């Protein structure tokens, strides 16, 4: 089984647009949306949910106010500033800041604190017009997005095994931290989507170091390459110097937004004008298929 992760470092460069189109073009695959805190792929692929699974990622400290004597030990112990006292209601746990470590539970002389599991999101296995899809939604203001990414990938792997699929297509998160790293482990290729801006180039350099740090083979896509052809040239020169292959370049094309508004991957979008972006994405996909098989 092969796995492709599409990431970018910088947000909004077009990861989901590409994965949506790859979902149409690739055969015999499972699709995984691993941008679990702001997932958008479902807006193009319209999954029909088959199973919904609770995700218990982190625990949280819960305070029994009937036992609390307001001694303040918990506040002193907590490294995450998750417990504070207010004049009206005394000590309370700030759920958004609590990391569920249990230090306050251990130190509380009154045993007024306990750690409790909570549901911090949901994972789904669905079917779409283009094949099976594993995805999730992290509840807002939660942590442990990396663990939820791991669960989505496990669901995708099991589904692929069951259905005899040879490829898992992964839509990653922006950034270089926890959910991104969780979406990179053990994949065959990381396609980095960038744009010809100074920010895009800066962020490409950082995400490429992350990909190399985890010994994953990188390839680059320059999206909207005609926005600034000089910077496109800088990105190409940088990739040449690093020995990183450029899988494709895509023109800025209004059709991409029109297809998004219609809720359709751009390669499956019927418009009166032929979309150059759709053609370039198709060509790039065939190149990626070859790279992945190597």
């Amino acid at each position, binding site marked *: 089984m092969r796995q492709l992760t599409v990431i970018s470092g910088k947000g909004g*460069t077009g990861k989901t647009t590409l994965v949506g189109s790859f979902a149409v073009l690739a055969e015999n695959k499972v699709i995984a949306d691993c941008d679990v805190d702001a997932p958008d792929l479902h807006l193009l692929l319209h999954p029909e949910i088959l199973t919904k699974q609770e995700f218990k990622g982190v625990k949280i400290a819960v305070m029994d106010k009937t036992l609390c004597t307001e001694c303040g030990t918990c506040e002193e112990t907590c490294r995450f500033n998750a417990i504070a006292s207010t004049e009206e209601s005394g000590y309370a746990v700030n759920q958004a800041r609590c990391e569920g*470590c249990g230090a306050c539970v251990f130190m509380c002389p009154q045993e007024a604190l306990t750690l409790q599991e909570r549901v911090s999101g949901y994972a789904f296995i669905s079917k779409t017009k283009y094949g099976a899809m594993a995805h999730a939604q992290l509840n*807002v203001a939660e942590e442990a997005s990396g663990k939820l990414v791991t669960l989505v990938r496990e669901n995708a792997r099991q589904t692929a095994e069951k259905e005899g699929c040879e490829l898992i297509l992964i839509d990653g998160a*922006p950034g270089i931290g926890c959910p991104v790293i969780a979406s990179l482990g053990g994949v065959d290729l990381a396609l980095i989507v960038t744009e010809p801006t*100074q920010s895009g180039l800066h962020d490409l350099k*950082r995400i490429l170091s992350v990909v190399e740090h985890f010994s994953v083979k990188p390839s680059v896509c320059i999206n909207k390459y005609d926005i600034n052809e000089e910077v496109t040239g800088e990105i190409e020169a940088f990739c040449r110097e690093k020995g990183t292959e450029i899988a494709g370049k895509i023109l800025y094309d209004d059709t991409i937004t029109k297809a998004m508004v219609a809720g359709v991957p751009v390669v499956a979008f019927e418009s009166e004008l032929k979309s150059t972006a759709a053609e370039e994405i198709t060509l790039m996909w065939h190149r990626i298929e070859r790279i992945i098989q190597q």
Partner: protein
Amino acid sequence: MIISVASGKGGTGKTTVALNLALSLSNVQVQLLDCDVEEPNSHIFLNPVIEETKPAQTLVPKVNYELCDYCGKCAPACEYNALVVLPEKEVMVFPELCHGCGLCSLVCPQEAISEEPREIGVIKKGRSGDGKIDLVYGLLNIGEVKATPLIDQVKAELNPAKTVIIDVPPGTACPVIAAVQSTDYCILVTEPTPFGLYDLKLAVEVLRVLKIPFGIVVNKAGIGDRKVYEYCAKEGIPILLEIPHDKRIARYYSEGVPFVREMPEWEERFAGMMKSIKEYVG
């Protein structure tokens, strides 16, 4: 006053809004905190003179083997599985899993566990080339998982005597919470597309949970559809400013130039937005 600039979806223009707003406030002193420590970009536009670079650290356990009797109490206490005790042999520490809570050293009956700092990134402090804006940004080390402690340390540099603008990372999870918490007002930047709207709704939920007042900047106005506007009208969310989808603005962005520097007519609009936020916050 502390203002955060956030968005659910990445690439909608947070940095554009934070920077151009900072550059449009001529009669106050501004400090810009770039809390997108995974991919900070503000410095690209400000060409700051960096005055100080310091390591950002978290604490990880260190075992004193002269005291450790391999009782094994530390490992099950750790909620993050960052410790494994091999009897009579070793206590393995996995620093990348450690949250630095200190519980292992609290539970150890032999007082064999102390804590030592581990570098997770750096904090850079400086001033924009023209000396007008104080910039602080964090840079997470490559391969590092948790951004939150570094974000907290960037925010510890906050200067309450100035007007503070915080550039927030994308998403809705813990790094966003760390960056927006304790700010007086949040500007949510979105684009008028289905992806923009979906992620905007998630970001709105976050701010409602945290009880932070907010308004919207619509960037790339003119692309997509009208649904972001319909949503804001229905929810009674103010639209503070619209920035059109404009080739010139995109071009300046691509070159690393804040567009108010080349299109000064926008200074007044950003300053006007600040004025209405100030009136709202009171």
